[in-house]
């Protein structure tokens, strides 16, 4: 996926979210965007910018670092770098759009949901991802998907964004050993 395609996918995601929010009867001020660190954070910012245009209101933005909610600490050994979780708005009663770059096993989303509900009781939570690469290990599905990819288990899907230091936006599938 090149820069243009990625741009379009983000825009489409935002439009779908706005549309579904309206259909659900949610007022613009009830919507909040939460990016899952680290891949979901910049994507969440972009989606929020697009949403702000269509909703004519800027939804609050937060980030979640799910490191302390992982279920694989003892298998990972060396502790992961833990970044800040930053949610400065009341979660209770909100329509929360969780944003991540790639949906794979579903474990990250499971941890993010656990963490999110520790901040309060949202009215509803939707999941938006840029790439769904399949391979789920938990019964979790995205509400909004930019693109679905069929890739082998050992392959790595990378979403590169300019905010993260990439020369240009791209989604790259790296085959093992290449």
């Amino acid at each position, binding site marked *: 996926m090149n820069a243009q395609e990625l741009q379009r996918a983000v825009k489409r995601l935002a439009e779908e979210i706005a549309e579904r929010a309206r259909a659900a009867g949610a007022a613009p001020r009830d919507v909040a965007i939460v990016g899952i660190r680290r891949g979901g954070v910049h994507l969440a910012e972009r989606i929020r910018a697009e949403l702000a245009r269509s909703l004519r209101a800027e939804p609050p933005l937060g980030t979640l*670092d799910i*490191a*302390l*909610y*992982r*279920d*694989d*600490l*003892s*298998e*990972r*050994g*060396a*502790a992961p770098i*833990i*970044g*800040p*979780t*930053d949610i400065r708005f009341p979660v209770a009663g909100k329509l929360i759009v969780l944003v991540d770059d790639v949906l*794979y*096993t579903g*474990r*990250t989303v499971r*941890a993010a949901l*656990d*963490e999110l509900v*520790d*901040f*309060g009781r949202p009215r509803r939570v939707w999941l938006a991802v840029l790439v769904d690469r399949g*391979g789920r290990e938990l019964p979790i599905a995205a509400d909004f998907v930019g693109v679905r990819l069929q890739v082998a288990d050992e392959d790595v899907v990378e979403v590169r964004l300019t905010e993260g230091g990439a020369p240009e936006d791209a989604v790259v599938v790296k085959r093992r050993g290449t």
Partner: protein
Amino acid sequence: MIGRHKHCIALADYSRAEILEVLDLAVSMKEVLQRPIKKVPSLRGKSVVNLFFEASTRTRSSFEIAAKVLSADALNWTSSSSSVTKGETLIDTARNLEAMRPDVLVIRHSAGGAPQLVAEHVGCAVVSAGDGAHEHPSQGLLDCFTLREKLGTLEGKTVAIVGDISHSRVARSDIHAMTKLGARVRLCGPPTMIPAGVEALGATVHYGLREAIEGADAVVMLRIQHERIGDPLIPGTREYSKLWGLNAKKAAEWLRPECVILHPGPINRGVELSPEVADGPQSVILDQVQNGVAVRMAILYLLAGGNPAESGEAKA
């Protein structure tokens, strides 16, 4: 693991990078403490045993809360309920506790070196919560955390540590950690409370309080233990407080306005610190308490975090 270390026993053995690893993680841990639900599941199923051979409500509670916020199970084993009085050796006690398969053993003991002795005989991670006059690493780390929070950095800062340096494990851990983070450390107290050769740790020694605290960015006031009086380290608390205690007048005249005041607690009000200073605007003593939990969470998280040999790229 904290850097190369399986245990947290002596900051003398820790590098600057290893100290910073704990302090950086403690920032995230402190954020957890601000949440409405102060609990994360990261150490669920892990257990922490607090093995205390010396009375200490605050350090034990701090470790206990840290364990519980991380969802670890915490068991307290104190000397009054232990087998020590029945003649069981430290190694036997530790091995017995280890049979309960804890992930971390937190130990406080009146003998310097006791945590190391335990670490040599058990398989789990060992955290010292203070051993004799040797070290109190979590206190040294939380003091540095508090100073980073208040001063931004320790690089180039001057910290004065005042009191009974010779019996203080806090002073030793502070000196090791603070000098590694780039601070200049001044030690101050009556000559009878300055241990032999302490300059070799990289600190300067001052007998006069004014010369030690003037121009300092932070002052750590140590607790004067009542059993030292007439030890005969000092003739009495009256003269001590007059010469080495910090009151509002001395603080106003000698301290920089932005200088912060730390104390490992519990305070002897009116001896080393007057109440106005302990509760005054420069005091960060209560911040130290909360930071203590955050730092201990970081230590427990890193040391209970499993086996690096099994490390691999996880899918998530």
